[in-house]
Every structure is written in structure tokens, then in C-alpha cells.
């Protein structure tokens, strides 16, 4: 495996920095009580969409889940609109109507964020089908978790994608848990990637905490999809540092498990890798991080300064026209 270009490696880092700091700030703000919402922290899983998204164009699509701010930001969803959305403001991506579980930003290709486990996959197929019909080489990423690999929609979607040779990549972030249930307690196979065999589709397990391995695997899958050769299932092994929903305890984990897994933090690992390998200087990375800090400061301020949507918004966007009751 050769390394990607320096530019790409920095691009991945830049995304990871944004995702990590954004998550940290989000948790801090929620903890302080300034914003109230169900928040599914993405801390620990940054490497996955960061690596993938450097391979994507604005015209490519993603569908992601409630635990998806990292996926959306990596794909290009603007930070300020994201914050405004999470603050329920009219300046948010969705005018405050969607919230953290429903971030949408078609301009950057963030098409669906869903709160229903398993539901990214069927819709991602549709986006991929449409792209294929248009004859362009856009690809669609369906993000989901290990727990979602046990629901019916997973099966139906992978089967259809394979038969229709759709340009879609199924990215399963295996963080070891579905809410509080261990993956092995609910999943009758050791390696979720092997479920791809049931659909005559390549299936690859990869260390999702290593951005470069992730990048390689994603590259192969995305190129395959762009070339019209069909879908791939990627199982990215990772961990969510802050449990299922922010505020949860971690009693369901084995003693010492969390401590052990926190050691495998993709962020410092990759940061050191870049510096130690001479791919980037400390100053350079610190500057990126500082830029993100400012960007997030500004985004939070933008969100809090923005107005809430007008009550009339309840009647709008139900249909294409306004509802009169």
C-alpha cells in the first residue's frame, strides 16, 4: 500500500480535526445546558468519513444516521448551518425542522440523515440508481452501524444493489455496540464484512481508526463503483468514545474495556504519524486546528444569534405548497 499524496493526507487530517473539535464543542455546549438535544457523539470514529470523503466529490451522495455529524461535516456540510440546525434555528441546514438526526445539505451531497436504524441503505440505492440512469459516475455512500447489519433493510438493500450493480458503498462503522448491546451478542457472524458473500459483493474489514488503511479500502470500493462494477461492503472497526447517546453511562461495558479501547484513538495516532513521518509540521497542524477552533466559535455564535423559525413553518414543507388547516 503506497501512501496517498501529501495533499490528501493533510486533507484527511483537516477533516479529522474539524470533526473531532466539533464533537468536543458540541458535548461541551450540551453539558453546559446551552443546547438541548439527543446527541450521538462521533468522537473516535472521525477517521472513517474523513478518509472516505477525500475521495468524494460534491456531486457524490451520502446517506447517514443519527450518529452522523462527522459524516456530514466531512462531506462538506457547512459548520455554521450545522450548528444552527442543532440549535433549532431557522438558519440551520433544515430551518431547524430536522435537528441532529436529520441533517440534510444537498449542496454538499448530504442527502438523508435518518433516525431509523437500517434506513440509509435502501435510499442510498435509489440515489445510486438515479446516478447510474443519468449516466454519470457519481457514487453514493450509505453509512450505518454494526447493529444495523441485523435489520431486514440491510439484507434487502445489499441484495438489490448487487443485482442492479449500483454505484453504492455500504460503510458499516463497527463500534462494537448497538446502543448497549455488544455486537457479538446480537450478530450471528464474527465478521460483518463476510455478509457480503450472501450478495456476491466484495466485503472488506478494515481498521477504521487508521485513516490510511481506511483510505485504501475506500479508494478501491469507490473506483469500483465509479467504473460501474457495483457495490462493496466495508466494515470499519472503530469505537465511540462517549457511548450511545451523550450522557449515557458505560456500565454495559466490561471493566477496563473502555480504557483499553480509548488508547486506540485515531486522532493523536494520525497526528503523530504525519509529524513523525515528516508529512507535516507541528505548526502546520496546529494552525489547522486553530482555524477550526475559530470556525466552530463562529458557528456557535452564528447559531445562538439566529432566530428560531416562525410558527408558520409547521405548515410549510409538509407538501410543496403550504398547508391550510
Amino acid at each position, binding site marked *: 500500500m503506497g501512501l496517498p499524496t501529501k495533499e490528501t493526507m493533510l486533507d484527511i487530517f483537516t477533516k479529522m480535526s474539524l470533526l473531532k473539535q466539533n464533537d468536543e464543542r458540541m458535548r461541551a455546549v450540551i453539558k453546559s445546558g446551552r443546547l438541548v438535544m439527543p446527541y450521538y457523539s462521533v468522537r473516535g470514529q472521525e477517521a472513517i468519513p474523513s478518509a472516505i470523503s477525500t475521495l468524494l466529490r460534491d456531486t457524490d*451522495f451520502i*446517506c447517514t444516521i443519527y450518529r452522523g455529524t462527522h459524516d456530514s461535516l466531512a462531506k462538506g456540510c457547512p459548520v455554521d448551518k450545522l450548528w444552527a440546525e442543532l440549535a433549532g434555528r431557522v438558519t*440551520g*441546514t*433544515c*430551518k*431547524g*425542522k*430536522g435537528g441532529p438526526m*436529520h441533517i*440534510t*445539505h*444537498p449542496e454538499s451531497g448530504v*442527502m*438523508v440523515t*435518518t*433516525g*431509523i436504524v437500517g*434506513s440509509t*441503505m*435502501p*435510499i*442510498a*440505492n*435509489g*440515489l*445510486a*440508481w*438515479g*446516478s447510474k*440512469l*443519468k449516466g454519470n459516475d457519481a457514487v*453514493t455512500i450509505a453509512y450505518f452501524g454494526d447493529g444495523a447489519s441485523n435489520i*431486514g*433493510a440491510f439484507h*434487502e*438493500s445489499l*441484495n*438489490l444493489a448487487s*443485482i*442492479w450493480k449500483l454505484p453504492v458503498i455500504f460503510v458499516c462503522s463497527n463500534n462494537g455496540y448497538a446502543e448497549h448491546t455488544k455486537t457479538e451478542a446480537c450478530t450471528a457472524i464474527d465478521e460483518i464484512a463476510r455478509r457480503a458473500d450472501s450478495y456476491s459483493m466484495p466485503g472488506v474489514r478494515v481498521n477504521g481508526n487508521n485513516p490510511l488503511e481506511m483510505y485504501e479500502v475506500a479508494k478501491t470500493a469507490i473506483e469500483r463503483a465509479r467504473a460501474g462494477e457495483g457495490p462493496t461492503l466495508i466494515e470499519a472497526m472503530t469505537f465511540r468514545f462517549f457511548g450511545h447517546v451523550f450522557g449515557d453511562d458505560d456500565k454495559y461495558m466490561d471493566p477496563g474495556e473502555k480504557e483499553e479501547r480509548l488508547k486506540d484513538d485515531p486522532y493523536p495516532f494520525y497526528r503523530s504519524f504525519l509529524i513523525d513521518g515528516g508529512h507535516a509540521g507541528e505548526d502546520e497542524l496546529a494552525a489547522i486546528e486553530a482555524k477550526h477552533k475559530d470556525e466552530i466559535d463562529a458557528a456557535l455564535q452564528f447559531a445562538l444569534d439566529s432566530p428560531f423559525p416562525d410558527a408558520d413553518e409547521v405548515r*410549510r*414543507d*409538509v*407538501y*410543496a405548497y403550504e398547508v391550510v388547516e
Partner: protein
Amino acid sequence: MTEKMTMVQAVNAALADAMEADETVLLLGEDIADKEGGGVCGVTAGLSTRFGTDRVKSTPISEQAIMGAAIGAAMIGFKPVAEIMLMNFFTVASDMIVNHAAKLRFMSGGQTSVPIVVRTMTGAGVSNGGQHSDYLEAWFAHTAGLKVVLPSCPADAYGLMLSCIDDPDPCIFIETLPSLFTPGPAPERGRKIPIGKANVIRQGGHVSVIAYGRIVNSIATLAEKLSGEGIEIELIDLRTISPLDLDTILASVRKTGAAVVVHEAVKAFGPGAEISSAIHERLFDALRAPVKRIGAKYAPVPFSQPLETASLPSIGEVEAAIRALAPAKIPVPA
């Protein structure tokens, strides 16, 4: 116009005309391509041959995947018409329809939309038993963001299908299985029938009868008979269950002062409840008597033919209800 057509032919014609006019119109569903017989009842026959199997796709038995494919393609500019073969199979696909198709426009603050049509067939009366006969339009009428259409005859099916395909929002299009092959006057090609607008099939001053689906036809026949006796009903075929055309309903009841609501869905918590309460709320003082609701019995649809019949609303019930509501003194016909 003496040409006749069945609902199968009419929907087929609408799909063909829409596909001809607009290449973003796509069809998908189980067995719908010609290699697979052009649909179990032939509604899509000939279309894959004519428009290609890229646009007319047979699918695996995977209703969630079918709906997801339709939704995703719709979000980027296509107009998919997805078939869920029978309405009871919505129960395996309703996440996609209710949590996604219906809500994505709203939840995205208007950034995305899902202009799909979901075609489905249903209806008791052909001994298909408890799992193949339910009318579930009330579920979808209760779901904000969906439109629900249920034509009573081939010509309406044609015109409403054209409108559904054109509509920017997700439409549920329900075909009545027991009358799928009943011929009726052919539609005028290209003529759309608006969604959300009821059809006053017959004008009359004595009792408003509000119905939809195949039973409208039996009521039209009944109306002739009653007219002979001097009872003039105003027969309203809703065509669309949601959004409901309250204007037409209210205008009629304001005139007649009495209403009967009829559907083949189960009466309890059925569409008739909404219609009846909406009328009472707005025309309480204009009503001579309470609105009468007629629907299927509170039971799964039985297989045995006499039982199946007993579970359905009968035209006898409708007649009795109308007679009971007709003004005591009917002016002698001239």
C-alpha cells in the same frame, strides 16, 4: 365516447403516456417487466418492451428496497412509480413511506422532495382472505406529507395517475382489485384529473352520499332507482382521500342537509370518521340528522364468500341509510 377500457388498461395507458412524455418517469416493482409477465394483473404489460428495462425494472421481493430505490431516485430528479403489489404488503415497507417519503421534505426544511407514486392493489370481494384485502388508506391519510388517491373507474384512474406522477409529493395510488377488469368509459388521452378535488357524479337535493372506490358505481345505480321514486341524491366521488376536498363536500351537505359516507375500509377509526366529524363540525346547524357512516365490519376480511360479503358494506345498507335521511316530504316529481 363509446370506447371502453378496464382499470388495468387505463393505468397502463397513463403510465405509458407519462413515460412517453417524460423520460424521468420510472417504474419498479415485483414482476412488472414483460419478461416477468408485465405485472401480476398486467397493469405494466408492454412497458418494459416499449421503454426498456432500465426504466421498467422488476425487483426482488424486497418492499423496503423497492421503496428506498424509488425515494432515492426521486430525490435527484426522477419520478418513480413503485408498485407494492398488494396494500397489505405496505406493512413491510411503511418505514420507507411514512418515516421517509412523507417526511423528508419537511425534515430537510424543503431542501429535498420525494415525488414518487406508490401503486398498490387491494380490496375484498375476491376471496383472497385476511392478508390480501385490506384498505389501509386511513393510515396514510393520517400521515402528514402523503397524498392518497383511490379512483372509482378506469377513466379516473387514468387522469389521477397522470396527476400523481406530476405531483411534487409522494402519492399513494390505490387500485381496486375486485373491479380491476371491469370495463368503463375510456379516458380522454392526456387529460389529467386534479388531486384533492372530488367529483360530483350526480347532483341532487335530498341526501349527499360521499364515497370512493368501486362502491361509487353501485351507488350510482342505486341513485337511478331512488330517483325513480323521487329521492334525489347528490353523489360525491372523493377520488382523493387526502387532502380531502372539504369544499365540495360541505357545499353539497349545505344544500341537502344530510349525508351518508361510504367506504370499504373498516368503519372503526376509518376515513369516514374524519369526513363525518368534519361535516358535523362545520354544518352542525344545517344537518337534519347526524351523518351516517357505512364501512366494513370490525373484523379481518374472511375467506368464505358469504362471510366476506357479510363483512363488507352492502348497497342495501346504503339504500336504507339514504331512505332514512331523505326529507320526510319529498316533492312529487314533475
